[in-house]
């Protein structure tokens, strides 16, 4: 019997106060196994103890929401009797320690969350952030991490058979020691077939299915709840190994088992493995769960109860099955070649009781574990930032060269090298895939389509977390609207540093409040998500990086793409030229790439105007008036026009603006969309109806991009001279 010493408690990342609380709950000191169970369930990763208080500020309900936060994924009504289940989750820490498996199991984890709800996954997107590939010190490692993460995602998603249809990939030095890997997944389920992670019906058997339990990933959840130090590489054994083929079998078998009606509740074993699934199912069902560990399929001999309970071996599920119908369920799992074993049963006493060869090794009230974790109102000051408010004086020597440098920069260059490694077409629903403002997936079951996008901007949030989060939501809704869809719901992934530092805690709170405000305004409630804290290495935190994923509804129609489609179309700017001052310019890609600086504040946002611009573009797209649409974001108007031209058809435009040319071309003011059309008057009529500007900038022209400001030529480029550096930049950078 291991003695519970203060050192052992500290090694489990539990504070003395938390330990006291455990003793109070149990009415006695915990056993070693119980200590392990509490430590993972009360880890930041599983309990949200630092963020829970503030997450309550997020809007979670709306006309489309069928299931808000608290289940494995949020669920929305998509019409026709069907629903979409979706969520985003981080796998940052494992991806730093072991990029390939870290990212692969990140995909695996979120896919299980989706099919646990009874939904078949039909799309994945990734939001990735790395240190710069050409960083003098960390460059080689950053390149290796990117390559590993991308092939890990490809390996898992491709084999499983879910298309990876979009996302983002951004580079900043603050991610050198702490890359961010956020994975979004979405699935489709019939509304009357939604499953929940609840253990109901006393006496019903609890069934373990899927891969055997091994010693991998023990304490993964706790690892994800601490900063990285020099010793973190020794944590490699804490990262799990993924088996996408096993997951595919699990998907098919679970969906088939759910069809029988014999499955009462189901929960995947993700973070904190068997511990989390047993106590959460009991807690949600208002019941208890008793399991016998000797019956758990094990990969290794001699595993202790502690190890079995805390293992994070992948591709495992826990089911509660209707008593007497076990054989129906077992038959299906056998058909798919999977282990399925009754390991325990639902009890009425509200306790999680764990036995090992008949001996009770843990007995804890489920609710105390799952829902009564400590909640901290951590002290906070002002959000951490060291950037100045005012930037340097500057003047562009050559605007065309600046544009080319921007297009060849890490954030803006072609990401084809990444997304061509992903099967983005499997399941033949991808109407619009990677490289567009939003992905569009046709839903075969309903005949309608869904649009989805991921957005985040660490630089904006670093300068002002509240405003940055509002802008991320606005941009994500704009991306979804730009392809013609109505944004209806959101999921979020909050990537921050150490919440025990008051200036980091302030970033988190400000960002949550800003996100909540914007999500409420745009009618996109947060239906679930994930908080990833302690993204710090050797005391250096990442930029506050809230990432939002938004899902929109639309009718099925041929997609409108960003690229100009033919010559002599009218090029219009919906929303107007916007404005910018020298402080707001400090947050732009121009400041980052051309000047190598960061200062000031993020762009201003008029949410009401933004909403009207989005409504106008949706109507323009639905009416079939636009040949192309592309929202203005990173890099500003010039980069947007260049991106529209990269297919070969460029444009000749004249901008009637009075600001200095650098601002006019490269400021990142929101609420703007570039479109091309043959019917400018019809577009103007719709814009006028919503009270938004619709400026005719010029015409599309084959092979050239020419921009004037009130007649004065600012830049004149062959499209090919823009395309080549844009297309080759990432591969060149990866060669080092």
């Amino acid at each position, binding site marked *: 019997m291991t003695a519970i010493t203060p050192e052992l408690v500290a090694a489990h990342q539990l504070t003395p106060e938390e330990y006291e609380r455990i003793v109070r709950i149990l009415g006695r000191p915990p056993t070693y196994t119980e200590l392990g169970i509490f430590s993972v369930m009360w880890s930041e990763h599983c309990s949200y103890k630092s963020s829970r208080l503030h997450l309550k500020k997020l809007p979670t309900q709306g006309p489309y929401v069928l299931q808000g936060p608290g289940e494995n994924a949020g669920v929305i009504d998509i019409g026709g009797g069907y629903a979409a289940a979706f969520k985003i989750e981080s796998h940052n820490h494992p991806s730093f320690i072991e990029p390939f498996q870290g990212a692969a199991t990140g995909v695996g984890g979120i896919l299980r969350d989706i099919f646990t709800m009874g939904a078949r996954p039909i799309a994945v997107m990734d939001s990735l952030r790395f240190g710069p590939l050409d960083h003098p010190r960390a460059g080689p490692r950053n390149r290796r991490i990117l390559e590993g993460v991308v*092939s890990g995602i*490809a390996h898992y998603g*491709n*084999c*499983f*058979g879910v298309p990876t249809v979009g996302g983002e990939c951004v580079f900043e030095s603050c991610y050198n020691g702490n890359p961010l890997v956020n994975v979004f997944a979405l699935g489709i389920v019939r509304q009357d077939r939604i499953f929940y992670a609840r253990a109901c019906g006393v006496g019903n058997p609890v069934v373990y299915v899927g891969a055997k339990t091994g010693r991998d990933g023990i304490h993964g959840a706790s690892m994800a709840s601490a900063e990285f130090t020099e010793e973190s590489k020794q944590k490699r054994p804490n990262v799990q190994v993924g*088996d*996408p*083929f*096993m997951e*595919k*079998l699990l998907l*098919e078998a679970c969906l088939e088992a759910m069809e029988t009606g014999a499955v009462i509740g189901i929960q995947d074993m993700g973070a904190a493995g068997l511990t989390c699934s047993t106590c959460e199912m009991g807690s949600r069902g208002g019941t208890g769960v008793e399991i016998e560990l000797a019956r758990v399929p094990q990969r290794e001999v001699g595993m202790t109860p502690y190890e079995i309970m805390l293992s994070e071996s992948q591709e495992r599920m826990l089911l509660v099955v209707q008593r007497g119908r076990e054989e129906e369920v077992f038959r299906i799992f056998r058909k*798919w*070649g999977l282990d399925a074993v009754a390991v325990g049963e639902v009890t009425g006493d509200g306790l999680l009781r764990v036995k090992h060869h008949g001996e009770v090794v843990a007995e804890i009230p489920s609710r105390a574990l799952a829902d009564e974790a400590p909640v901290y109102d951590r002290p906070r000051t002002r959000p951490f930032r060291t950037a100045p408010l005012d930037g340097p004086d500057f003047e562009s020597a050559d605007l065309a060269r600046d544009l080319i440098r921007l297009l060849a920069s890490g954030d803006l260059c072609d990401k084809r090298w990444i*997304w*061509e*490694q*992903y*099967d*983005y*077409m*499997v*399941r*033949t629903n*991808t*109407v619009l895939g990677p490289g567009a403002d939003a992905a569009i997936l*046709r839903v*075969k079951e309903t005949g309608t389509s869904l649009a989805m996008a991921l957005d985040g901007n660490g630089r904006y949030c670093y300068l002002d977390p509240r405003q940055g989060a509002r802008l991320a939501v606005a941009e994500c809704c704009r991306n979804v609207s730009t392809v013609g869809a109505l944004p209806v719901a959101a999921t979020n992934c909050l990537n921050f540093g150490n919440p025990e530092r008051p200036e980091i805690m302030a970033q988190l709170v400000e960002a949550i409040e800003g996100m909540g405000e914007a999500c409420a305004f745009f009618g996109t409630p947060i239906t679930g998500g994930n908080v990833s804290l302690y993204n710090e290495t050797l005391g250096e935190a990442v930029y506050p990086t809230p990432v939002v994923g938004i899902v929109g509804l639309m009718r*099925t129609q*041929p997609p409108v793409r960003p690229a100009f489609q033919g010559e002599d179309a009218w090029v219009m700017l919906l929303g107007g030229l916007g404005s910018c001052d020298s402080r707001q310019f400090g947050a732009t890609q121009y400041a980052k790439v051309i000047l190598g600086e960061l200062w000031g504040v993020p762009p201003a946002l008029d949410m009401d105007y933004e909403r009207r611009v989005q409504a106008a573009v949706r109507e323009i797209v639905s009416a079939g008036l636009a040949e192309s649409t592309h929202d203005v974001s990173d890099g500003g108007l010039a980069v947007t026009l260049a991106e529209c031209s990269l297919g070969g058809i460029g444009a000749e435009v004249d901008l009637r603006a009075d600001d200095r040319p650098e601002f006019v071309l490269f400021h990142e003011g929101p609420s703007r969309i570039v479109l091309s059309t043959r019917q400018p008057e019809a577009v103007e009529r719709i814009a006028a109806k919503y009270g938004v500007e619709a400026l005719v900038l010029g015409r599309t022209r084959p092979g050239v991009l020419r921009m004037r400001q009130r007649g004065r030529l600012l830049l004149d480029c062959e499209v090919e001279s823009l395309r080549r550096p844009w297309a080759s930049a990432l591969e060149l950078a990866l060669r080092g």
Partner: protein
Amino acid sequence: MKFGVVVFPGSNCDHDAWWAVTHNLGHEAEFLWHDDESLGNADAVILPGGFSYGDYLRCGAIAKFSRIMRAVERFAREGGLVLGICNGFQILVECGLLPGALIRNRGLKFICRQVELRVETTQSPFSSEFRKGQIVRIPIAHGEGCYVADPRTLEELEAEDRVVFRYVDNPNGSLNDIAGILNAGRNVLGMMPHPERASDPLMGSTDGLLVFRSMAAALSLAR
């Protein structure tokens, strides 16, 4: 006309093939389980894309030993139409129903891309609806799609007009730019590109549908 779509546990384009046949082509299709011994009353068989048994070993190496493949081999020997797409093509070469082998792509990376193919022959039940020399757009999505064979086999394939599709811009290093080949009896086609992904106007190309149309035409002629 009834198409049988084989389902290995790791098949993931099975449903796509089924959808292309039933919804885009307008014929019947049914799934055939890998552990079954019979093809039922299927008039033609499709081996779909995916990762048959995980394919951690060599793609298709384990599928070769599955029960359903005994039935497929018999069916092919008797002249039945068998279309192997992507992983299906890999399984067909593993079984020896088609010559050569499929190895890792030249760039060692998985590639998902819309590519152009040249139709080299219309003298087959899979390509009669195309025009010879026609350039078509059908996507690829594979990590091991580089077709290799010894020089004699290649010569034979060329001499016997058994190369049906060739890449216009070779993405994976395949010898002779080969994207799809026939067996000597011309009733078995293996191709790396995915015709089922180019069968619906929404997916950006319907060139792939002509493969299924050709098969349907051949089957109705045989009736």
